[in-house]
């Protein structure tokens, strides 16, 4: 095909998704800032319980929950949907239809998450983990997602390509998985159909799968797209990525019940949860191996490409967090670390070190192409990357070490409970500092994004980090 035709098609594809994608991506950044603030407050409260202690809406149980839901359904889900809606037309070469409807879905999504967060702060949380929004809000979000999935599947149906690229497998599967999970869990749990232990099992079936069958596939779709595109080289083994996909589809589905190890649930369910968790080593190894082999010999490119930096960091976190998760599910390991801060560290390595970093990589790749601008400042990019990377590393290490210590002390009935509490405090303080670093990163990121969408960033030319590197090398030569 001629260059010109390509350019025209590209303009058409980007034009079809520009407004909804920008709306989802910008909203996600706003939620990221809201979520970071709530997170910092909750984190400080754990080592300074008198901090903001006089009002019910500011109490730890509500702040922590408002944080989780604003980052999960505001930041993570909206970023994921934004990236999905951008990738689908590129991969199907079919423009999106229903742009107006998608914009409406984005606005409604924002309204619903805001309503949900207010509901939590004012005492209407359901206290069912990952499903704290009251039922009507959850139903609203389902409708919004149905609009997104409808637009995505419609484009898939009108595809102008022979091959369905691996990223598109993941995205297609998500369009099926998320509605099934979210609807079943909400109706079963909040619709009064399930109670007692059966409800707890459904809760963890959902809560684990929303990570494995919603955020993980979208992150992997991003990895399999951005990595080859930036370095200009196809993924090492395309075939292996197929094995990885089906293994994830099968095993991740069953992993969730490891959250109830040692609990009052049928033994068979926990056993299956543990087995499936170990089996997850297969899809994870395929991704890690593929990423490493594709990157081999190209690591120097990390210096000039912000997209690549974040995506590679995220991919590495994926390998670490998944391997950790598999072993964490084992009974012996669970006996020590379940119920401790260790789990919180693990969850953040997953949702932040892996997922959020991957989305950042997606933003760095997508926004210049949608706004026609370059990232405004190399310094802001560096602050963003290093504060995020450093922050999540400290976060993870502090809570991992602190969690193991906490778990071991809890297993020793000779240690009074208040001594266990005292032992965790320094680690919790370290976590607040780490959270501060992450917040600084997010502010730097938000400033960059704002400049791009407001048209204050330079028009497209040489990408920012690359340009700086070329000039500095030119000077030296």
């Amino acid at each position, binding site marked *: 095909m001629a260059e010109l035709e390509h350019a025209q098609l590209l303009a058409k594809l980007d034009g079809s998704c520009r407004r909804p994608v920008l709306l989802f991506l910008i909203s996600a950044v706003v939620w990221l800032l809201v979520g970071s603030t709530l997170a910092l407050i909750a984190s400080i409260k754990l080592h300074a*319980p*008198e901090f903001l*202690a006089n*009002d019910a809406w500011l*109490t*730890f*149980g*509500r702040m*922590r*929950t408002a944080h989780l839901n604003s980052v999960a359904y505001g930041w993570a889900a909206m970023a994921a949907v934004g990236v999905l809606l951008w990738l689908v037309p590129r991969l199907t070469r079919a423009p999106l239809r229903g742009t107006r409807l998608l914009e409406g879905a984005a606005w409604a999504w924002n309204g619903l998450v805001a309503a949900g967060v207010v509901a939590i702060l004012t005492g209407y*949380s*359901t*206290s*069912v983990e990952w499903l704290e929004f009251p039922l009507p809000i959850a139903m609203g979000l389902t409708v919004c997602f149905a609009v997104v999935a409808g637009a995505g599947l419609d484009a898939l*149906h009108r595809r102008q390509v022979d091959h*369905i690229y691996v990223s598109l*497998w993941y995205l*297609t*599967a998500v369009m*099926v*998985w998320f509605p*099934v999970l979210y609807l*079943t869990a909400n109706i079963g749990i909040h619709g009064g*159909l*399930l*109670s*007692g*232990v*059966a*409800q*707890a*099992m*459904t809760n*963890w*079936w959902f809560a684990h*799968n929303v990570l494995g069958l919603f955020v993980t596939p979208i992150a992997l779709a991003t990895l399999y797209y951005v990595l080859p595109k930036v370095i200009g080289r196809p993924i090492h083994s395309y075939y292996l990525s197929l094995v990885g996909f089906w293994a994830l*589809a099968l095993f991740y*589905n*069953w992993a*969730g*019940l490891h*959250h109830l190890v*040692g*609990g*009052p649930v*049928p033994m068979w*369910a926990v056993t299956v949860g543990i087995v499936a968790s170990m089996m997850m080593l297969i899809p994870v190894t395929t991704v890690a191996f593929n990423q490493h082999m594709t990157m081999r010999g190209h690591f120097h490119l990390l210096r000039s490409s912000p997209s690549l930096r974040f995506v590679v960091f995220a991919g590495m976190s994926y390998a670490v967090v998944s391997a950790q998760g598999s072993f964490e599910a084992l009974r012996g390991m669970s*006996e020590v670390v*379940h*119920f*401790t801060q260790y789990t919180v560290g693990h969850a953040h390595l997953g949702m932040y070190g892996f997922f959020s970093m991957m989305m950042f990589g997606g933003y760095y790749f997508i926004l210049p192409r949608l706004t026609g601008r370059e990232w405004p400042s190399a310094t802001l990019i560096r602050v963003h990357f290093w504060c995020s990377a450093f922050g999540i590393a400290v976060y993870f290490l502090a809570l991992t070490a602190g969690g193991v210590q906490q778990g071991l002390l*809890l*297993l020793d*009935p000779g240690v009074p*409970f*208040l001594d266990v509490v*005292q032992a*965790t*405090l320094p680690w*919790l303080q370290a976590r607040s500092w780490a959270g501060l670093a992450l917040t600084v990163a997010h502010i730097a990121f938000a400033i960059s994004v704002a400049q791009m969408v407001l048209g204050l960033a330079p028009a497209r030319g040489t990408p920012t980090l690359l340009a700086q590197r070329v000039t500095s090398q030119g000077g030296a030569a």
Partner: protein
Amino acid sequence: MIEPRTLLLGALATVCFSLTGYVLVPALGVETTPITLENGRAYPPVLSEQAAQGREVYRDLGCVYCHSQQVRPETFGADLDRGWGRRGSLPVDYVGQQPPLLGTMRTGPDLADIGTRQPSETWHLLHLYDPQLTSPGSNMPPFRFLFDEVEGHDERALTLPEGTVANGVSVVPTARASALVAYLQALQQPPDVTGSSDE
């Protein structure tokens, strides 16, 4: 190459497979009706109206994010040695609970059997008003907003150390505080309930 139909059906099949195992089978198979104990009482007992309201307070303040309500079995962990329960928790303990407040964190101790371990209303009220009064060094937040400060003497007033509040002011639990304590007192998992967790 792989067709979208294969993909969609495959994706749907995998999630329905686990939905069957983890949602439908338990929904139909796990105990959902109270049992009758040897002494003729139904277990678990129905919460009093006040305790049920207290459960709602527990839910809306998010106590579940720091406290589990599940005692580990004898062979797993040290819950029984810590005195957190008199036996491991069983599915029947949660019959009818919506939601079951099993919890995933133990920033604070397990509360499945707290009503047995700490039956004192006075203790619970003081602890909720300010955990430092009963448990110095605790990182549990104070729940002062569950109490009213009233002028003059009140017979429901908490007995607080000198100087905690201004002279002549009494601290009185609100209905929410009393309900929450009634719920905590009702949290008990009696030892004479038996059953297998492998049904």
